[in-house]
């Protein structure tokens, strides 16, 4: 049977894609960010770690969905998904290759489990989906595994509650486990961490909130999932609400997890960046060494 072996979280900041494209990923500003992902990249290419399929949870940033259609939870069931032109031409990355059998299986299972999914076939994917792939896999000519795009509305209010996201993750886990083929499935939760891209309060970063979020995501997601939207908005900035998507990933891993790796960096453009590898405790591998990496301004604060 198929199993959710791993959850990965990653920010999906578009400037990371631009840094790759402009060849500036090694400079003083971006170097530490790409260095922080290096252990994840190394880990995922090790034998046994490469997933067959990733269920990639992200938000569409007004790309495939405009004001005409605003689905709360959707799933891409097509054979492939091309990178979208978000205003500066499509990102020069490979098409995302889907897994229609598993995607349709998950869609049907979720609907029977009371999550009324929106099913998409013809859909372009934006930086929310492709930047995490670039950060973890580098710049291959084709992505090394299949990807099921799973967009969540966090743009037009109200987005789904943290609780709803956490429960959805649990239903994704059950859906994957009822798929007969033997597949290594990852669930990735992307976006975050604290950031605000609008208004006079733009530039907000809340290190204390972010580190507490990471801690609770590992140890007590049940309580974390009850955090109301207003708390995300006040503490993590208007775009920090993306973090509810991390709870979908966490819900798909079961009760107890082992944190193999946690990276936290301030700032990547406007954003505090977080990236983690988590595995269900009962089948978890060894933590990476070092297990926790902070860089950028997060270091300065840690030394206080």
């Amino acid at each position, binding site marked *: 049977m198929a199993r959710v072996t791993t959850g990965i979280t990653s920010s999906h900041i578009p400037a990371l894609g631009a840094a790759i494209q402009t060849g500036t990923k090694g400079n003083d500003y971006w170097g530490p960010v790409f260095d922080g992902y290096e252990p994840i990249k190394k880990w995922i290419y090790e034998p046994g770690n490469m997933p067959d399929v990733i269920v990639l949870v992200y938000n569409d940033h007004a790309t495939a969905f405009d004001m005409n259609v605003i689905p709360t939870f959707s799933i891409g069931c097509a054979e492939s998904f091309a990178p979208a032109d978000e205003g500066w031409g499509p990102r020069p990355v490979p098409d995302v290759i889907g897994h229609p059998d598993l995607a349709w299986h998950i869609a049907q299972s979720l609907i029977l489990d009371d999550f009324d999914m929106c099913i998409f076939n013809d859909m372009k994917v934006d930086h929310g989906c492709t930047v995490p792939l670039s950060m973890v896999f580098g710049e291959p000519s084709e992505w090394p595994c299949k990807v099921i795009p799973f967009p969540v509305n966090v743009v037009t209010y109200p987005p789904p509650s943290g609780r709803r996201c956490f429960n959805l993750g649990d239903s994704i886990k059950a859906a994957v486990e009822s798929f007969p083929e033997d597949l290594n499935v990852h669930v990735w939760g992307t976006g975050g961490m604290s950031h*605000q*891209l*609008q208004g*006079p309060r733009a530039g907000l*970063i809340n290190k204390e909130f972010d580190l507490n979020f990471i801690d609770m995501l590992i140890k007590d997601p049940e309580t974390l999932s009850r955090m109301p939207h207003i708390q995300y908005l006040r503490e993590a900035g208007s775009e920090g609400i993306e973090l509810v998507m991390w709870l979908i990933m966490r819900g798909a891993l079961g009760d107890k997890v082992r944190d193999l790796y946690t990276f936290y960096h301030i700032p990547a453009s406007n954003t505090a960046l977080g990236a983690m590898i988590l595995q269900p405790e009962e089948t978890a591998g060894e933590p990476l060494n070092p297990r926790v990496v902070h860089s950028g*301004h997060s270091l300065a604060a840690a030394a206080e």
Partner: protein
Amino acid sequence: MSDEKKKERIDIHAYLAEFDDIPGTRVFTAQRARKGYWLNQFAMSLMKEENRQKFKEDNAAYLENWNLTDAAKKAVLARDYNAMIDEGGNVYFLSKLFSADGQSFQTAAGSMTGMTPEEYAQMMINGGRSPEGVRSIKEKY
């Protein structure tokens, strides 16, 4: 339903009212989404290269194709992102406009703070804007 525990429901009025208590922040509610419908759809049109070309050739003429308020038109022409958000714009939609202008998210976001791009970039390197005192207008914390 009788044997099931009654669901705890969120009071939508209280839920929405709290959003107005966050300083310097406009949450993209249904009310804003309705107001900004055409402004946001205009921005989406810039995802096509041919539309970007037309827009670049003559901003004002291109805007005539969209059912925009005068305030929205003025805000777009001035690239005043705070004013566009007041007109119901959302930053992810408006990103198509600043991307078409060759601007980054950081430049656009910084332009809404009253800081110069250099000051804003430096604030981010120094750890970003602290949440201290900007969480709530009423509670001042």
